[in-house]
């Protein structure tokens, strides 16, 4: 099966007075049609930049300095802004953490849905209006037929995020990029929104790139997951393998540091230190100063993703001839 989205060696720099910061360093990932891929990592790991670079919303001074992004085999990383804007509505939808960045406060939610569908699907007024109501029903807005004429500020935070999901999906894109879509919501609302996103993606065969720092959300929603650290993808694999049987020592440490809901321990496993800042990424494997399994090679050679147990991991423990960790 050929990938819907294919990202190869994507690199993003921030030029600063004190030199260039490599915010994304040869990030590669792919998504199959209809697949939900999670991107997880600690804050500053480069998750949002990855999403933004893919949909051409990188904010200056950030620039793509290498690699490529292809959608259905066609490169989209060098398209003129006008073409990219059309792809964003029609082929790639977006959901961000704060629904107010997506919703226009001056228009009713119905009008925003109608306009999006008319622009991209060429529907008549009546059809578009009817579908707008149907979308609100689908995303679980009570009283959709009346609420279609309400303004964004008349909705609660959780309801607004439902509207944004409807807006992202209504033009029937093949891919939705969702960046921390539930981070601002309370757990009971978060569960509803995640279940909704998953159900709609499945029903419409939409692929999703789900960016979040929450492993629980990843575990419940995704088919595969990519783990980022210091601007790099350091492990990718099926969600069951990455969560329960990770290969990379960082992923192992990360998973072990999450308190369990079902049992109580005296002490949590902890990774000492912190993820390096962009201006102080160590040579070799970026994780090497914190890694309990570090050895000589890790300190000067940078590992790329390689087959490792059940996943792909950027870790020298899995190089050919190495004694496995």
């Amino acid at each position, binding site marked *: 099966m050929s990938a819907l989205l294919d990202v190869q060696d994507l690199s993003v720099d921030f030029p600063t007075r004190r030199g260039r910061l490599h915010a994304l360093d040869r990030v590669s990932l792919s998504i199959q049609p209809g697949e939900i891929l999670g991107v997880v990592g*600690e*804050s500053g790991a480069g998750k949002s930049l990855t999403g933004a670079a893919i949909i051409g919303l990188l904010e200056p001074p950030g620039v793509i300095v290498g690699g490529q992004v292809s959608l259905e085999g066609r490169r989209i990383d060098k398209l003129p802004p006008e073409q990219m804007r059309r792809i964003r509505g029609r082929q790639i939808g977006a959901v961000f953490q704060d629904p107010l960045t997506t919703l226009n406060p001056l228009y009713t939610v119905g009008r925003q849905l109608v306009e999006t569908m008319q622009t991209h699907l060429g529907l008549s007024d009546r059809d578009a209006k009817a579908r707008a109501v149907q979308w609100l029903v689908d995303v679980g807005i009570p009283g959709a037929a009346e609420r279609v004429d309400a303004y964004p500020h008349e909705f*609660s935070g*959780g*309801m607004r995020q439902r509207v944004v999901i409807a807006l992202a999906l209504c033009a029937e894109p093949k891919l939705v990029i969702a960046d921390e879509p539930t981070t601002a919501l*309370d*757990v*009971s*609302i*978060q*569960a*509803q929104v*995640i*279940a909704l996103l*998953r159900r709609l993606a499945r029903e419409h065969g939409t692929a999703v790139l789900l960016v979040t*720092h*929450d*492993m*629980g*959300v*990843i*575990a*419940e*929603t995704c088919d595969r997951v990519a783990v980022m650290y210091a601007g790099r993808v350091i492990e990718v694999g*099926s*969600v*069951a*393998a*990455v*969560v*329960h049987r990770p290969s990379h020592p960082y992923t192992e*440490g*990360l*998973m072990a*540091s*999450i*308190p*369990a*809901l*079902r049992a*109580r*321990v*005296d*002490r*949590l*496993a*902890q*990774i*000492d230190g*912190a*993820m390096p800042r962009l201006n102080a990424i160590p040579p070799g494997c970026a994780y090497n100063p914190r890694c309990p399994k570090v050895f000589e090679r890790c300190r000067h050679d940078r590992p790329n993703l390689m087959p490792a147990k059940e996943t792909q991991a950027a870790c020298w423990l899995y190089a050919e001839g190495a004694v496995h960790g």
Partner: protein
Amino acid sequence: MADVLEAVKVSRSFDVSKPWLQRMLSRSGRRSLRAVDEVSFSIPKGTTLSLVGESGCGKSTVARLAVGLYPPSSGDIRFEGQSLSSARAQPALRRRMNMIFQDPYASLNPRWRVQDIVAEPLRAFGMLRGSAVGDRVGQLLSQVGLSPADGAKYPHEFSGGQRQRISIARALSSEPDFLVCDEPTSALDVSVQAQILNLMRELQTRLGLTYLFISHNLSVIRHMSDRLGVMYLGRIVEHGPAEAIFTEPRHPYTRLLLDAIPDLDAAGGVGRVRAGVGGEVPSPIAPPPGCTFHPRCPLANDRCRVERPDYTQAGPVEVACHAVEEGRG
């Protein structure tokens, strides 16, 4: 064991009326919001009581009440048996309680050096002077896993986790017995959260500290708590030994919360089918009558819609729920 802190039917309301002129023009009356509603608990020395609930349910207001930053509208809070309103007046008692906040960025003065931030309570309570202050600050910084040399730096030179360590060092400097921790790791990444939670538990054992610990994260709560109170719209709806509540949640809201948490064990499964996760928390300005949870509750009946449930003892746990009382929980 003796209780360090005891809350007896504590309520706190806020006036949320429109300004006087607007009220006159629109002929509307004063409005008040009951953020905390007859909350009672006690915390034995050296243990942790946690409060969990969704945003707006009154956790931070309880935190402020517990250290005397707000006076209660009614009810009483006692520190070692003394009413807080009189205890706060005595510096000797005041230095024995302190608070750690969620946001380690906002709670540290950016223009002060770390050593001055940490020493501030020492000076405020006149506990030490001269070179003894510097020695004590060095000790406190080591105790939270920083180096004494870090005292010369400013907060912006530290990561989020390190800043939370600085807040903890400051909170510990007046040698308190009781700490209120309001979402101390909610702004931190999970790996850093593990470091801070481990540190807090170590310090508790070493120094015999008593914690009122607040979080919306149930996994964190389970890790930290001896006793637990689940809050909904200002009320504690279930209260008891944490392990008992986690093993057998009784209140429908506690069950909903536990059911809603994204679960690592779900990885690779077909996605959980969730029962009864619906609705949103209503506005505390006009809470529903009867049991305030009834609009979202799968077990609600007519009684729940009109009569406010009292506490029922269910095993080691107290639950405010008619269904539990009637044995249909």
